[in-house]
């Protein structure tokens, strides 16, 4: 812990040389968003090219800075760039600055790299959409907000990016908002995210109240003086924020509906931006969580629950995108679990996040390619046998599939296996509960991902008559190939070589040598056995046997999983309905009580005035009489007082 605090509160050097370009990382995509959204129809012709080029340029800047960082010593790889003073209010100073360190660099490369590939893919995918330019504007805004989030050097600046991501996701999920269901999905995502944002804002308020600062450096330096209760409260509120953005239990309900957006958006949300923000927040706030073991335990529990939850839901979905969404939920659960384990898990959380970014983007874009060829159908029971007609998509999707189930040698194997090992570290009941959850999750993941793969690409052709599947154009398949290569080899590159571990050590600290509850080799063997068992079960159920075009009724668990384990129903009956009753009764009280009192008073005065108005008869003599009477009264009163 001591090393961790020292590492993160270490004064970051000022940015000079290539690092003074850091602001460009955020500014480039932001410029794209501004030009495309403000330029209007004039930018229609080149909008998609500009939109794809600017994140690409940001990626180039990122790579240059990455190389420059590699050339520096491990201990001074944190560089901050001060941009401007935002809130100079007496004792409270908030400066907007960017912080480049190994952790944010990982995210910058992931966001800009995978993000650019998704942009390129979108050129082909959205070709026939009349609003393609607007789409690219939103995508750029999304990337810019996410980059601001990971590059921020204070929680308040991070919060700006955090909200920007929420806004951009809302705009993109509801991109086809002429469909009311899609607009509702966007709203659901936004509202669920607001609940999380509330947590983050409360955490920031606690920081300000307790420490008087919101910058990373200040908070981590002062965190040591906090009482454990305060640190726990702060950690839990940060976790609530992370749960909202990362779709963790109990705020995960928006993720499935978020599939309403165009498929590249799903890829962007699930791989490079948005859902990774929660994991980033927890890892970045490591010094706070280190001081609050209870909050850490809650993080692990949330991760474990979500990973099982998502895996179960994924098994029952027939909609290819929703199955992948459930899988994201589950994989992010793994990352959360790892992030909650402390220094032993941080590296693997980020590692899995990076590999997941590649294979999940590949899977989603592959699903988009399938939909592109199948008239936007998403029902996997209507797919089947696509391997022969869509060879590139088949191979790239296949690599993504092998990577996510943890096929030995591919990316997912290295990262997920490490998380399972980390979950088994420790003593007492924890390694058994969390380790077993992670282990079982791996088996179930293998089952549902194999199911997705086999239903889509193998078995009998169950297409409806009017579809003529075809391979997608090159502009879509090239990003798929690059992502597939990443899915295959990224793990090998970063995992067994220890490259990522050494790279992240200045930020996440050095984990102590901790032994697992079971020997390491047995864990690897167990994982592989479970993966093979899961895949084999899927093979026997969905390839050896005939797959009906209409879904069978299924067991009670299947039926429950199809409706997201009744999460929506629960939310509706526990939160939405009472909320509606509350607002309705408030409206009633407002209309009848408050408005009634005000309107009643006004009516009373109006009515009385109406009566008094009758005094104005228009007869001069009656006015004269009242003047005379008044004068007589005054005189009488004066006389009376005198006497």
């Amino acid at each position: 812990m001591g090393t961790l605090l020292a590492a993160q509160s270490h004064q970051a050097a000022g940015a000079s040389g290539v690092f003074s370009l850091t602001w460009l990382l955020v500014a480039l995509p932001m410029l794209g968003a501004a030009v495309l959204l403000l330029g209007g129809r004039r930018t229609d012709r080149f909008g998609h090219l500009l939109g794809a080029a600017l994140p690409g340029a940001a990626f180039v800047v990122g790579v240059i800075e990455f190389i420059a960082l590699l050339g520096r010593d491990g201990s001074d790889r944190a560089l901050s760039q001060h941009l401007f003073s935002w809130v100079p209010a007496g004792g409270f100073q908030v400066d907007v600055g960017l912080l480049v360190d190994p952790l944010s660099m990982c995210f910058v490369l992931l966001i800009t790299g995978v993000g650019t590939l998704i942009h390129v893919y979108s050129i082909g995918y959205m070709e026939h959409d009349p609003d393609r330019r607007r789409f690219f504007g939103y995508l750029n805004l999304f990337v810019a907000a996410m980059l601001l989030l990971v590059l921020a050097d204070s929680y308040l600046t991070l919060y700006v990016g955090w909200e920007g991501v929420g806004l951009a996701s809302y705009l993109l999920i509801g991109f086809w908002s002429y469909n009311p269901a899609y607009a509702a999905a966007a709203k659901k995502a936004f509202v669920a995210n607001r609940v999380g944002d509330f947590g983050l804002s409360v955490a920031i308020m606690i920081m300000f109240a307790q420490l008087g600062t919101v910058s990373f450096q200040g908070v981590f330096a002062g965190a040591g003086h906090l009482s454990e209760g305060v640190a726990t409260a702060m950690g839990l509120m940060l976790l609530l924020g992370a749960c909202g953005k990362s779709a963790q239990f109990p705020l995960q309900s928006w993720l499935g509906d978020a599939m309403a957006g165009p498929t590249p958006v799903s890829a962007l949300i699930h791989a490079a931006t948005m859902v990774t923000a929660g994991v980033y927040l927890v890892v970045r706030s490591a010094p706070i969580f280190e001081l609050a073991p209870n909050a850490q335990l809650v993080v692990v529990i949330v991760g474990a629950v979500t990973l099982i939850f998502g895996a179960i839901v994924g098994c029952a979905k027939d909609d290819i995108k929703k199955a992948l969404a459930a899988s994201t939920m589950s994989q992010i659960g793994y990352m959360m679990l790892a992030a909650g384990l402390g220094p032993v898990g941080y590296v693997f959380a980020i590692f899995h996040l990076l590999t997941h970014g590649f294979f999940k983007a590949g899977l989603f874009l592959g699903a988009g390619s399938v939909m592109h060829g199948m008239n936007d159908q998403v029902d996997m029971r209507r797919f089947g046998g696509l391997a022969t007609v869509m060879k590139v998509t088949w191979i790239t999707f296949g690599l993504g599939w092998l990577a996510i189930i943890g096929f030995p040698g591919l990316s997912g194997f290295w990262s997920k296996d490490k998380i399972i090992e980390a979950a088994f570290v420790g003593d007492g009941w924890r390694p058994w509960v969390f380790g077993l959850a992670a282990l079982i999750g791996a088996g179930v993941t293998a089952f549902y991902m194999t199911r997705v793969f086999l239903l889509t690409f193998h078995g009998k052709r169950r297409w409806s008559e009017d579809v003529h599947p075809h391979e997608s154009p090159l502009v879509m398949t090239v990003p798929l190939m690059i992502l597939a290569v990443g899915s295959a080899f990224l793990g090998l590159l970063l995992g067994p070589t220890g490259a990522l571990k050494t790279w992240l050590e200045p930020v996440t600290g050095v984990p102590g040598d901790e032994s697992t509850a079971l020997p390491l080799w047995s864990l690897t063997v167990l994982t592989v056995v479970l993966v093979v068992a899961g895949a084999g079960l899927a093979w026997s159920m969905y390839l050896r046997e005939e797959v009906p075009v209409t879904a069978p009724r299924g067991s009670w668990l299947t039926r429950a999983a199809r409706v997201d384990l009744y999460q929506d129903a629960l939310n509706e009956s526990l939160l939405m309905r009472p909320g509606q009753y509350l607002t309705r009764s408030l409206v009633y009280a407002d209309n009848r009580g408050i408005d009634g009192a005000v309107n009643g008073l006004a009516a009373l005065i109006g009515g009385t005035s109406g009566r008094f108005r009758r005094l104005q008869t228009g007869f001069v003599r009656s006015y004269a009489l009242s003047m005379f009477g008044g004068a007589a009264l005054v005189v009488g009163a004066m006389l009376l007082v005198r006497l």
Partner: protein
Amino acid sequence: MNPMNYVYLSSFLFAIGAAGVLLRRNAIVVFMCVELMLNACNLAFVTFARMQGNLDGQVIAFFVMVVAAAEVVVGLSIIVVIFRTRRSASVDGANLLKY
């Protein structure tokens, strides 16, 4: 002679004027009654000035006369206009300005 008699006379004239303003319908007569009230006041002012032994009341009486003269000009012209348009100078007839 007891100066209070002038005060009594003044009150009497004022009462006649007030009664005329309140009771008569002819605008000219009402107008004359207003003048009567003004002059009753003048009489009272002058009497009090005499009783107090200074000139304040007499000065004010002059002011009242000037104001009354101006008022006559405005008032009579209004009455003439009303008479021309309505063919009557009844104060009860001109009652359009009401609720």
